């Protein structure tokens, strides 16, 4: 840029609490940083590991095997005519995405604290790029699902076309919860211990190892207070097709909660963001 053109430059005003109008424009201006941060995290993630990206396949695969044996073969839970591994895996996909996003997001600001205290950029970029990294893992483990379907000769119905909608809902849930936890972890380091606990517990209280049909019908609406119930049910509905039904009131409740989480998450993050550099 020619320095002589500064007269035509927009004027930037910095004052307490006056960053709002600039913010979303900046977010767009810094999109390349967003891309580079995600790229860095993906590159670094499997550096100096022997089997590299295969870890993104092995972890969900082994969890799926264990769940199939425990819930399908030992507990003999019903699967509505679907091979149990596919039943488990269609839920494992969104769950792993959500769980990874939570842990990556909540740590993202802390592990980039050197950036936050030394450079300006819209802080939203950091947790969002953490989500992108989890999303890449999600796409890679999607390969396992394709493999399972091929192995069991399982052909999905037209409903698979709706899957992108449910993926978006999963993203919204991850971003919402992720932003909350990221902002909270900056101030309260307690959340470093809380998040692994949420992830561990969530795996069992969400319908990952079993179908949500086994929940007594009078409890299903309450059960949908867990936003991941709606997301997972949506995934199962579109991937498994056939006899799988979507319990609509519960799904809408989950959906509402997901968006509530997303909007409050962004709001809270924006509100606390300006103090990050001082607190971190």
């Amino acid at each position, binding site marked *: 840029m020619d320095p002589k053109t500064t007269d035509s430059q927009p004027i930037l005003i*910095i004052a307490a609490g006056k960053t709002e109008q600039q913010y979303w424009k900046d977010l767009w201006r810094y999109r390349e940083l967003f891309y580079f*941060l995600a790229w860095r995290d993906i590159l670094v993630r499997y550096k100096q590991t022997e089997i590299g990206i295969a870890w993104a396949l092995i972890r969900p695969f082994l969890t799926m095997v264990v769940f199939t044996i425990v819930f399908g073969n030992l507990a003999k839970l019903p699967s509505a005519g679907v091979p149990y591994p596919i039943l488990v895996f269609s839920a494992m996909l969104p769950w792993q995405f959500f769980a990874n996003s939570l842990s990556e997001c909540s740590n993202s600001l802390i592990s980039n604290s050197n950036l936050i205290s030394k450079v*300006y950029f819209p802080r939203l970029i950091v947790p969002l790029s953490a989500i992108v990294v989890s999303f890449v893992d999600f796409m890679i483990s999607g390969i396992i699902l394709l493999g399972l379907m091929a192995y069991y000769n399982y052909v999905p119905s037209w409903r698979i076309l709706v899957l992108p909608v449910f993926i978006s809902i999963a993203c919204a849930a991850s971003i919402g919860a992720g932003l909350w936890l990221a902002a909270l972890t900056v101030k*309260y380091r307690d959340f470093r211990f809380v998040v692994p606990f949420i992830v561990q517990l969530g795996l069992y209280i969400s319908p990952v190892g079993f179908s949500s049909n086994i929940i007594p019908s009078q409890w299903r609406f309450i059960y949908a207070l867990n936003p991941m119930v709606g997301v997972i049910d949506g995934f199962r509905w579109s991937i498994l097709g056939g006899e799988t039904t979507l319990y609509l009131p519960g799904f809408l409740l989950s959906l509402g909660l997901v968006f509530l989480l997303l909007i409050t998450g962004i709001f809270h993050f924006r509100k606390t963001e300006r103090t990050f550099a*001082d607190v971190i």
Partner: protein
Amino acid sequence: MSDPIISVENLSKKYTIGHQRQQGYTTLRDSIANSAKKLLNPFRQKKVKDADTNLEEFWALNDVSFDINQGDRIGIIGRNGAGKSTLLKVLSRITEPTTGSIRIKGRVASLLEVGTGFHPELTGRENIFLNGAVLGMGKLEIQRKFDEIVEFAEVIKFLDTPVKRYSSGMYVRLAFAVAAHLEPEILIVDEVLAVGDAQFQKKCLGKMKSVAGEGRTILFVSHNMAAINTLCSSGLVLKQGKVVCSGSISNCIATYDLESSQDRAATWKRSSDKVTSSLIITEIGINLHGKQPDIKLEVNVCLESLSQHKSAHLAIEVLNTIGMSIMQAIPTTENYITADRSQHSVNITIQLPPLIPERYLVSVWVGSHNTETIDWVKEAVMFEINESPTLGRSFPHHSEHGYIVPASTVEILNV
């Protein structure tokens, strides 16, 4: 062009510092406990507030106003804690001001640290792109300047090596090279030249000069007055969060020198808590007498005997500002501080060797034997020497070549 490119009005920044808690962040437990307390007895809110009084307000910047025109090269000078870094942080939008406002025209790039965002696992090539993006460059812009950056950093051979295997010199060179190729209208630089070897520092300074020559505006913070003097056209002196001088750079440096020499007779007093030994140093005061190269350092030490102790003697140590000891003076090893009286006042005069203009710290030790320390106050007071010990020397001294300039003679032997 009469419009200033940066205009700062009544800028203030407040930090709240806790005196007891070590970490800056609150724990969840504290927050919950505090809100629970407020819920339980809403009428006693005042008391809860009282409990918080160990939080103290601290104004890092206090009503700062100034204008900067396009093409100005401003040196920001001040002691540690004067608010320089806070000012740069507010200007580069890392942290928000508490009150006041800033109007900026043009793209700002700030370089508050060398190698921000470098990732040790990534290669040199990858880090150039990453660091460039962190500093606000686009991908195309980085690609265009890639060769230039690599050449400036002199790391061509190691482009595909992870930077964790770089020597620290290479690391710094690469980091500065990326930053040096930014092309913002306004460049904000914090003490980054303090790294790297002398030759590279010179190269960096040259680069910054040429950047400034292109009509860009530079804000530069450094403790290196020589660098500021050569690079900057005007200055801004900060003291305790306030602007005490602005204008031509020579004026500002003079003001700063005066400011620092005023508290030359620095003193130290023991804060009442922490009393652990039987004999303690309670006060230290120093004074400089004479002119270069014949300066005497007078150290007054007050001590108090609190209980029975062995008789002892003092040792005075002079250190540089980063805590490396330059010399130690022990007037005598005879133990002249005895326990038969409670108050002691000792005066020690040290003939200083010809020291280069620098700041020096003084530590005071008291003990009965060189292996038996009774009390030791480290780096308690500071003094500053402003003049060269060599009369008429025109080029600056540098601590890299040592702190002492011994008197020397030369004899030319024509054989």
